């Protein structure tokens, strides 16, 4: 069984601090991590490797420094790592990103593709389903549990109000929730291998040019454009009331009505 896990390197938002004066994020010195949903999906793939001897490939698109995320995946036990890195891929929205990843996936053997549900720096949850569409694969997103049964997988698909148990024939794509698994630690031996024995293959546009339409990649191939970005204005403090409890309750209720929180 061949599994490809798509991972994204993201800034560790848990480590992000706020500038107390400006109220903006301090980005310098923020460590990069493997996106948590993706890492959970990677762990699920590695479990299938332990159980069934699956071959696990990790695939990422990003700048050269995303190498570190792929090395970490190798050190956790992934067999192969590919980094899609080219200036031509830069500035991509989710359509262009998924087109680029799908182009690479057309060149890799897979029975199952796992992506994270969403990345903590973008929160769109779009790239997984879009890859599935480009490749014409069945998809199940929001997966919390995964097992293999013959030529199919059985997954637990989470909704706000419950879950479905779903059987899907391979090949297919699933998007993993953070809750799916607790990622293992890297082992010393594998860390050594990841940096000394194994390689992270770098694929540029040239490596995928026969499987992608160039008008669908990078900034130019992105249907959506950022028109403007702005920091949210620093919040000014609201009114503070020093009144008895009964009066306070009335003021709060008024606010809740005004904000349509209650009706």
């Amino acid at each position: 069984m061949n599994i490809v896990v798509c991972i994204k390197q993201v800034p560790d938002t848990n480590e992000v601090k706020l500038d107390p004066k400006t109220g903006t994020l301090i980005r310098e010195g923020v460590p990069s991590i493997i996106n948590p949903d993706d890492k959970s999906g990677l762990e699920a793939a590695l479990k299938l490797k332990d159980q069934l001897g699956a071959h696990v490939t990790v695939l990422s698109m990003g700048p050269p420094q995303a190498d570190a995320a792929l090395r970490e995946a190798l050190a956790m036990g992934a067999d192969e790592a590919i980094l899609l890195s080219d200036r031509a891929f830069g500035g991509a929205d989710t359509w262009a990103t998924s087109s680029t990843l799908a182009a690479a996936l057309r060149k890799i053997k897979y029975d199952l593709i796992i992506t994270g549900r969403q990345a903590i720096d973008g929160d769109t949850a779009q790239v997984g389903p879009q890859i599935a569409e480009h490749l014409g694969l069945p998809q199940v997103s929001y997966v919390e549990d995964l097992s293999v049964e013959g030529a199919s997988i059985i997954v637990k698909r989470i909704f706000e109000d419950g879950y479905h148990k779903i059987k899907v024939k391979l090949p297919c794509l699933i998007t993993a929730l953070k809750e799916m698994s607790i990622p293992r630690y890297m082992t010393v031996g594998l860390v050594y291998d990841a940096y000394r024995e194994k390689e992270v293959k770098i694929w540029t546009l040239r490596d995928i040019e026969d499987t992608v339409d160039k008008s669908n990649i990078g900034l130019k191939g992105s249907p959506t454009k950022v028109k403007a970005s702005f920091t949210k204005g620093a919040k000014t403090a609201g009114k503070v009331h020093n009144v008895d409890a009964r009066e306070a309750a009335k003021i709060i209720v008024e606010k809740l009505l005004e904000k349509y929180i209650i009706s």
Partner: protein
Amino acid sequence: MSIANYRGVWVFAEQRGGEIQKVSLELLGKGKELAEQLGENLTAVILGNGIKDRAKELIYYGADKVIVVDNELLDIYTTEPYTKVLAEIINERKPEIVLIGATSIGRDLAPRVSARVATGLTADCTSLKIDEETRNLLMTRPAFGGNIMATIICPNHRPQMSTVRPGVMQKLARDESRTLDIEEYPVQLTPADINVEILEVVKETKQKINIEDASILVSGGRGVGKPENFKLLEELAHKLGGLVSASRAAVDAGWIEHNRQVGQTGKTVRPDLYLACGISGAIQHVAGMEESECIIAVNTNPDAPIFEVADLGIVGDVTKVIPALIEELRILKASNK
């Protein structure tokens, strides 16, 4: 693609078991405003099984027209049949805007549909406006944890698609006098279109405790005083349809479990309402909740830093203010009946 051929605003009306989701009605409210600005109609599209009679509700909440696709293969949501139908109608009718609720269904369906019809999609928009000059939809969404807002456009592709989370937009008042215009759209679906097999459907009445998903949080800190007082917060949260969260001080004191903790070492939340009870507002805590839509703080200390980020502050004792608030809500509910 000739953009001028694409006209009108659509809302995908999500139903589960025949029940139209709240977010879809909210999107009709926003969709109406956008359609009026464009001088176009607002159309709701509803897919399901045995849901024909639900269509008029969508008119009552603002749709000028409803397209109903009623088919037994659309009974329980699965990705492919819903995508196939929605993409087919979009390609045939060519709307310029399609809005979808950012639920666990909408966030599965929207990207798949957008990829099939080859257009852009912007997730979790908090503001939608029309650029009067270009007729482009201006889609504003938080980026990078909410500190930066980005306005996204989709200038050369149609439809312009975006998802919006529940609770962001406001629904219109229900109006039964509106003229019904309901069209049944015939589709050819075969069992082969369902490429997954649903083995089990489980409804969970017990809400999972995930404070990150709650739209209302009643949060307790050291000022709550003792673990028993958290019952008051529970009662209030229940009344408001929210969950109880906490500051690190309350968690460290063992008053409440760690998965409820908001802040730098806990979770980052951005509910519609964050009611901070007896929380001083240390920077590590504020970092995890300051993006909340509305912050109300109750604290005995008038100099507590939490008041600096609060939309409304009450200087007072949580154990007195919260019971009074519960009582006030009870009175309001009784008078609404």
